[in-house]
């Protein structure tokens, strides 16, 4: 058998080799981007939330290339090539200086004065980069700063327009661990207290167990251990919102190099139709061909829903239980965005629609999981990504990134298709982290999703 099969395959064609080289090239480019701009933006966004909402609860704060997470002590590590002098895994220890104490629900990242619980003391954000490039990160991304030292450590204090709500901010470099810490300093904190605080942070060498990863494993995880593969299941925390809830999104302005700009938003209306006439076809997501989603009169074409029972492939094979064509509707959601700043703000709107049902205990579950125990699932009942987004201005960056002009109030309509019979289970879903929702804050659980019932 082996003889027969060993040489049955052709050599991979040249175009296949080209695919591999292209993917490697893209990976190389991604690595460059990740090293510089993306981590910084994510960090800034996370820090913003921390700084603006002193009562924010953070079990874990994640960012690209670095992690600050309460794991007994704090694990701060990335297990790729760091300079040889720095340990691969490090643990951060904060010996809280006299007069301050850790804010209990802050994930160990906030410290306030002992006697004045809500007076801002320090908020810290540790970051670990792949190489000793901390100064590149700062100098490329921060407009104005003053170089200095605090407790003999290289420090950049952010100045000028980077000044934030009266709080002073410092990037302090801990060379021995390859860690950069951003410290927010409360107004009443003295220079001596700042120095004592910087001194109170130390690093010890950690182990792999102290480390947590930015990319959490998913189901069917690609993570391998020596002998077994690990599987994790996300526990989603769905928070149902009132339709008229006021949200605050964070956006950015690339020209000004700012990524802290806020835009208020509110759902104004939700409509359901079955016809795409009247919609600008340029606003339909480019991968959809209008002729394939609607008939000549503009009526949405039905969607085929398959229901499967998954088997193990040998003893039990997967079975197609049913296959039915279902009428579809288009859910159009008008969202008003108000830019109260004097700058153009670019938003990222990756909202999605999901069908959810509630179990006997009031917990939400994915409607397509018809019977989890029997492994019976259906194909998605609705578009899980934006199908239509109106009001694309000439300045918009791409489909998902509208640019709201200074002081502009703009209503954007986003649309999703959903099969008619599941409309009552359809929700608009926002993830505070990926959608950049600053408020209201439910970010104690990174798997929290804000959901708005469509009907």
């Amino acid at each position: 058998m082996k003889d027969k099969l060993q040489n049955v395959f052709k050599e991979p064609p040249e175009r296949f080799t080209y695919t591999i080289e292209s993917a490697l090239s893209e990976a190389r480019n991604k690595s460059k981007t990740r090293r510089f701009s993306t981590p910084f933006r994510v960090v800034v966004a996370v820090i913003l939330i921390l700084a603006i909402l002193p009562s924010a609860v953070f079990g874990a704060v994640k960012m690209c290339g670095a992690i600050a997470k309460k794991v007994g002590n704090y694990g701060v590590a990335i297990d790729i090539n760091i300079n040889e002098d720095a340990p691969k895994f490090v643990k951060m220890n904060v010996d809280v200086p006299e007069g301050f104490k850790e804010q209990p629900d802050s994930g160990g990242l906030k410290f306030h004065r002992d006697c004045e619980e809500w007076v801002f003391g320090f908020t810290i954000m540790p970051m670990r980069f792949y190489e000793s490039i901390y100064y590149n990160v700062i100098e490329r991304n921060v407009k104005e700063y003053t170089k200095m030292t605090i407790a003999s450590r290289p420090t950049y204090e952010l100045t000028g327009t980077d000044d934030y709500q009266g709080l002073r901010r410092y990037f302090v470099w801990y060379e021995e661990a390859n860690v950069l810490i951003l410290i927010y300093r409360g107004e009443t904190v003295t220079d001596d207290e700042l120095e004592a605080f910087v001194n109170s942070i130390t690093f010890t060498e950690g182990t792999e167990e102290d480390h947590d990863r930015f990319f959490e494993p998913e189901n069917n995880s690609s993570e391998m251990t020596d002998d077994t593969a690990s599987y994790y299941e996300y526990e989603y925390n769905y928070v149902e919102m009132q339709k008229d809830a006021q949200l605050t999104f964070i956006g950015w302005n690339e020209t000004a190099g700012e990524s802290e700009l806020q835009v208020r938003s509110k759902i104004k209306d939700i409509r359901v139709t079955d016809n795409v006439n009247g919609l600008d076809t340029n606003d339909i997501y480019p991968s959809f061909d209008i002729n394939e989603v609607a008939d000549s009169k503009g009526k949405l074409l039905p969607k085929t829903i398959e229901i499967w029972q998954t088997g193990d492939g040998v003893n039990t094979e997967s079975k197609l239980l049913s296959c039915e064509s279902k009428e579809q509707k288009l859910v159009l959601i008008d969202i008003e965005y108000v830019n109260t700043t004097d700058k153009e703000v670019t938003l990222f709107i990756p909202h999605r629609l999901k069908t959810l049902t509630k179990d006997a205990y009031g917990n939400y579950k994915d409607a397509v999981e018809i019977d989890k125990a029997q492994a019976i699932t259906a194909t998605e009942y609705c578009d899980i990504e934006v199908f239509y987004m109106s009001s694309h201005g000439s300045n918009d960056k791409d489909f998902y990134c509208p640019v709201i002009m200074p002081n502009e109030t703009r209503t954007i309509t986003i649309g999703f298709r959903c099969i008619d019979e599941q409309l009552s289970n359809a929700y608009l879903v926002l993830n505070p982290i990926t959608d950049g929702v600053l408020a209201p804050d439910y970010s104690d659980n990174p798997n929290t999703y804000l959901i708005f019932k469509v009907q």
Partner: protein
Amino acid sequence: MDVNKFEQLVRTSADTLYRVSMSMLKNEHDAQDCVSEAILKAYENLHKLKKEEFFRTWLVRILINECKSTLKKKGKSELIDDTKLPEISSRDNPYINVEIGEAIDSLPEKIRLVIIMFYVEDYSIKEIKRVLNIPEGTVKSRLSKGRALLKEQLE
């Protein structure tokens, strides 16, 4: 593992990536997409790989997951009706020997994958168990069922 090492290991796994993806998807276009996505995912998650020696099995596992999700998206399954094999263009035919290729293609996907990994890619039963995350007994039973089906076809 640095980028250069990563690239080198991916290149040496090119044949395996081609054979595994083609045997699952039977379509070169989809196979190219999945291989590309798998390489990017592997790079993004490189820090999760604990031992370099597991690189190939780890990468193949990512690829298999990609192929599975492509199949799922397309509404296909491992249940392929033997009497209705999809038309395969010469571009999408990865086999030198058409007769053996057809016999392999006629196997249910999960069995086909185990057969390819064991007989073509020289994976051990333990390695297949790791990559597919299935018990050793299941690997053996798929091998035995696959062998029997192939024998029937080829004799």
